Structure formats: structure tokens, C-alpha cells
């Protein structure tokens, strides 16, 4: 059994999952459009034209996929430690507000080399801080799912409150514009055919973040121990691994990564924060994490798939409500989770036969 065979099998599993996810999304889309009383074929054409049919459409898909790269990775970091971070939504909202407010407060002449890294740190720290109560509660025995969900609601109210209390521009419900050099360049400045689409260099930062994080996790002590804690916390405790701290750490990193999604929305797109910007990306992160299975190819593809659905929803909205895409998202989550268990057991049995495990 060579390492190469194992890599090939893992890649095969990736491709199967990706193909299955796309197929399920297709079938669900056709069924829903048909139920709604429209022609599945015409709507599929319209959706493909609006997304992968032009350079502008592709740019928009990449733009919609950008925050999902971060939130999908965030949810994955939690999952591999055995934790469900359902709070990416709130972590992103609070981080986005902070990035918008601090980005606007910086002196107008702040150079990009200072402003962007500073705001990245702000996004990460604030996102992590919004996961901190859940991390603390988990340590005293309260399930992270309930606490992160409750924190989402608190975040939504808090963002509204702070915008109302003075973080917003006078007479508006948004923060003032961030300083010019804090904004991330649109990709159409590098590739002119993306003209008009909102895709920015944030998508490149997103892919790099996913790649680097997935590379570091199995190679660092903390990352490895987080995964071990999920597998068998009692054995970890006996071995002297700080179980509670590793869990808390995973949730904090997860929150930080969710907060970084504001790079795509605040710094790469609007240049300010308004209430509701990036909403839904946190929940979509769960779909991306499940479809992505902690693999670089998987997460990038899953983000693109759900980005396609989001952009395609806009393309068909005149005929069929864009919200059918949310329904599809739910269906894909369940279908892929159903299939994933089977793929995993198939992969494991192959590896056992080959003597890799």
C-alpha cells in the first residue's frame, strides 16, 4: 500500500462527493421549479447563463463564494474537534461591524500595508471574541450548539443597537466608508473581462487561508490534539492533553475564521458595513463544510457550488423566487451527509484492504 494509492483514493472520494452534491442540487432545483409551475429546462438555461455563461457571471459566482470559503473553513475547524459552530452567522456580523467601524475611523492616509493587516487582525479577534462565550460555556458543560445559536440572536440585536447608538453614518443605517487603502482591489483591475462584477482579491485570500489552515492543522500539536479530543476525549485526558482548552481553542479559531469572511463583504465589496451584509453566509458555511469534508478541493468546490446557487437565484428571481436556493441548500446538506457516511465507510474499507490502516 503506497501513500500514492491512498492519495488517489481520497481524491476519488472528493470527486464522487462533488459530483453527487452537484447532481442533488440539479435534481432539487428541477423539482422545485417544476412544483412552482415553471419550466425546469428554461430556468436551468437562465441560471447557467446568469452564472457560468459569461465572465461577469463567473466573477459574481466567485464573489458570492468568497465569504463561504471562510465560513466553510470555520465550521470545519469546529467539526474536526467534534464541535458544531452554528454561530458563524453572529461572529461574522459582529466582526463585519468592527471592521467597518474601525476601517472608517483610521486616518484617511493610512497605507494599505498597515490598514489591511490591521483590519484582518480586527476581524479575527472580534470573530473569536464572539465565539468566546460559547467556548467558556462548553468548558462548564453547556452544549455549543445552543449557546452559539443564542449568540447569533444577541449579535443581530447588538449590531442594530450599536449602529443606532452612533457607529452608523448620520441618517443612514450603515457605517461610514472605510479608508480608501483598506479596500481590497476588484479582480477586474487585473483581469478586465470581470468588468462590473464584485469579485475581489479577497477570493484569493480566501483560497490561501483554506489551503494554509488545512496544511497547518494536521502538522501542529494544537491542531492534532483538537482532532484527537473529538475522537476520544477520555483517552486524551489520561494522556495529559488539555481537553477543555483544545475545545475552546477550536471554537475560538473557528470564530476568528468566520470573522475573516468580512474581508469579502466589507473590504472587498461594499467598503462599509450595513446591517444584514453577509447574512446567510454563516449557515451556508455548514453546507460548505459538510460538502467540503475538510479537503482544499472540496471546500473550494462547495463554496463555488453554493456561490452559483446564490447568484443563479438572482438570475431566475423574476420567474421563480431566489429562496428556492435556500431550500436546495438544505436538501444538499442532508443528501451529502447521508452519502458522506457511506463514502467514508467505503474509503475506510478500501484502505483496510490495502493495509494502510
Amino acid at each position, binding site marked *: 500500500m503506497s501513500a500514492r494509492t491512498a492519495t488517489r483514493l481520497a481524491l476519488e472520494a472528493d470527486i464522487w462527493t462533488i459530483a453527487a452534491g452537484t447532481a442533488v442540487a440539479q435534481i432539487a432545483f428541477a423539482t*422545485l421549479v417544476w412544483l*412552482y*409551475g415553471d419550466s425546469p429546462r428554461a430556468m436551468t438555461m437562465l441560471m447557467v447563463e446568469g452564472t457560468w455563461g459569461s465572465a461577469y457571471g463567473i466573477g459574481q459566482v466567485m464573489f458570492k463564494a468568497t465569504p463561504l470559503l471562510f465560513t466553510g473553513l470555520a465550521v470545519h475547524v469546529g467539526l474536526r474537534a467534534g464541535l*458544531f459552530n*452554528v454561530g458563524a452567522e453572529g461572529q461574522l456580523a459582529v466582526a463585519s461591524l468592527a471592521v467597518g467601524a474601525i476601517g472608517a475611523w483610521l486616518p484617511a492616509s493610512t497605507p494599505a500595508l498597515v490598514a489591511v493587516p490591521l483590519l484582518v487582525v480586527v476581524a479575527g479577534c472580534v470573530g473569536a471574541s464572539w465565539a468566546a*462565550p460559547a467556548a*467558556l*460555556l462548553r468548558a*462548564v*458543560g*453547556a*452544549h455549543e*450548539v*445552543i*449557546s452559539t*445559536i*443564542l*449568540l447569533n*440572536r*444577541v449579535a443581530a*440585536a*447588538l449590531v*442594530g*443597537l450599536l449602529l*443606532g*447608538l452612533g457607529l452608523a453614518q448620520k441618517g443612514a443605517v450603515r457605517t461610514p466608508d472605510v479608508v480608501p487603502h483598506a479596500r481590497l482591489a476588484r479582480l477586474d483591475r487585473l483581469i478586465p473581462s470581470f468588468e462590473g462584477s464584485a469579485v475581489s482579491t479577497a477570493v484569493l485570500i480566501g483560497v490561501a487561508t483554506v489551503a494554509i489552515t488545512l496544511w497547518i492543522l494536521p502538522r501542529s500539536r494544537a491542531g492534532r490534539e483538537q482532532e484527537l479530543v473529538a475522537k476520544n476525549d477520555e483517552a486524551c485526558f489520561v494522556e495529559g492533553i488539555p481537553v477543555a482548552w483544545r475545545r475552546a481553542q477550536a471554537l475560538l479559531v473557528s470564530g476568528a475564521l468566520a470573522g475573516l469572511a468580512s474581508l469579502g463583504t466589507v473590504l472587498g465589496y461594499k467598503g462599509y458595513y450595513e446591517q444584514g451584509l453577509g447574512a446567510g453566509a454563516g*449557515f451556508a458555511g*455548514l*453546507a460548505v463544510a*459538510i460538502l467540503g469534508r475538510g479537503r482544499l478541493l472540496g471546500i473550494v468546490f462547495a463554496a463555488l457550488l453554493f456561490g452559483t446557487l446564490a447568484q443563479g437565484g438572482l438570475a431566475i428571481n423574476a420567474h421563480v*423566487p431566489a*429562496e*428556492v*436556493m*435556500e*431550500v436546495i*441548500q*438544505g*436538501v444538499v*446538506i*442532508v443528501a451529502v*451527509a*447521508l452519502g458522506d*457516511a457511506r463514502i467514508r465507510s467505503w474509503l475506510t474499507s478500501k484502505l483496510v484492504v490495502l493495509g494502510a490502516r
Partner: protein
Amino acid sequence: MSIITSIASVTMLAQTARTAVPYVLASQGGVWSERSGVVNVALEGMMLAGGLASVAVAHDHGPALGIVAALAVGAALGALHAIITEWGRIDAIVSGVAINIVALGGTRVVMRALYQSSSNSPSMTGFEAYGGGIVGRVVFDPLFAAALGAVVATAVALRVTRFGLRVRACGEGPRAARAAGIAVVRTRVIAVAIGGALAALGGAALAYDEHQFQSGMSGGRGFIALAAVVLSGWRAGRAAALCVVFAALDALQVVLQGHARALQDMVQMLPFIAALLALALLSRNRGHAGAPPAGLGTNATE
């Protein structure tokens, strides 16, 4: 009117009772589901689906049939949740989050199909008020009675009936229950369907109270109800009592209408912050009595 006098008033009591109805119904749904061993974060989505179903049917066929529709939709979603987790062996949290996403998007799609608007339904009339005054209107509402009845029925059914005993057996030890001849999957499907119906009834109560359905109108009540279930140690009566406390914090919003906007925004967070604080304080040193069902989240065939 000062803040103190608005809070300490008969209006506040009546508002609390009225606000508590959806919370209490959803919490009883959570108790049924989780005592059978199926984690249910989908209460929120079930409330939404039930709310829209009730309004859509009540529009043409009257409020009573609207309630029947809500119960049916809730039971179907509950059964679906249990089938996905039990038969498909998917983690119940994944299934629950998926159901919430589908319910939020799906209610908007259905509203646009029915009313050409994905944000709210036209206004409708719920049950006629049988009593006079604000207290009478609350206390004589059939859905208020339904909430009270649900708490008593849940507590009694789980404690003394044969089916209740089976549900608890499935929750405490699914494998032992199976060995004793209980059809674990079927029992769980029925229990979660009952729970879904109750949560959907809570959604209907909310919609009837507002005289329309609005997108996302459950507003986190299903999650608060779930927190109440956990805090109560998975017991019907205590979960309902906790729901009344959270509802009182929620009712402050109505009572304090007209005060400063910032105060209202802050009050909006109160039920959620209270639930988080309660989780922080009460999760530590849980005695045997407050422990979750031993088989919560585990499969009979694992």
C-alpha cells in the same frame, strides 16, 4: 408613564401570559423529541412552517382547520427529522439546521406563490375572543388553553402511559429498549412527530396572535424553548416554567413600546442573554436528576 409602573402592571402579566404561549408549546415539542433521544434544533423551523400552514389554511377554511394544518405540517417535519437521523444515521444537529434553512427559505417561496410577496401574508383573523378586557382575551384564547393542556399532557403521558415509558426507554438506552422488543425507530419517529406538531402549534399561536404570517417571525423562540428544555433537565413542567420567565423578558418589549429606541434594542437581547447566563450558571455540577437522557443523540443500531 415610568418604566417601573409599565413593568409592574396587570398589562405586563397579561402580556407575559400571551407571549409565553408559543414558547411553552415549542418547549413541550422539545421535551417529546429529546426524551425519545433525538436532539431537536429544528423547533424554530417547525414553528415557521406551522405558522404559515395555519395562516394559509385559515384564510379560506377558518382558524380551526388552520390549526389542523399546522399540526399536520409540524408532525410531518418532525417525522422527517427523526427518519433522517434514525434511518439515515445523520447527526441530528445537521438535520435540524438543514430543516431550519429549508423552512426559512421554503416559507418565503410558498408565500410568494400564494400572496406574491415573500415577506408577509395578508392579515387574517384568528379565534374570536371569548372574554372581555386584556386579561380575558388572553386567558380565554383556545391556544392559551392548548398550551396549558400540552404541558399537563406531556408531563402525564411521559410519566405514566405505556407509550411515554417506551419513549423514555428509547431516550435513556436505545439498545436496551430494542433488546426489550421496543421498535426504537418507530417510537422515536412518533415522539418527534408529536413534538413537531406541538412546535408548529406554537408557530400557529404566534401567527394568530399577530393576525398574519411574517418571514422569520419565530425570531429565535424555538431556540429559547430548546434552551429551556435543556435547563429544565428535560422535564415538561419546569421547561414550561422557564419559558414563562423568558417570555416575561420578551413581553418587556411590548410593554416598553414608546420608550427610547436604544432601550428597546437592549430589551430585545434580554431573553437570549438570560438563556446564556442561565446555561453558564446551571450547567455546572448537574446532579443525577438534571442529566440529559443517557441515549440522547445515539442510535439504536450503533
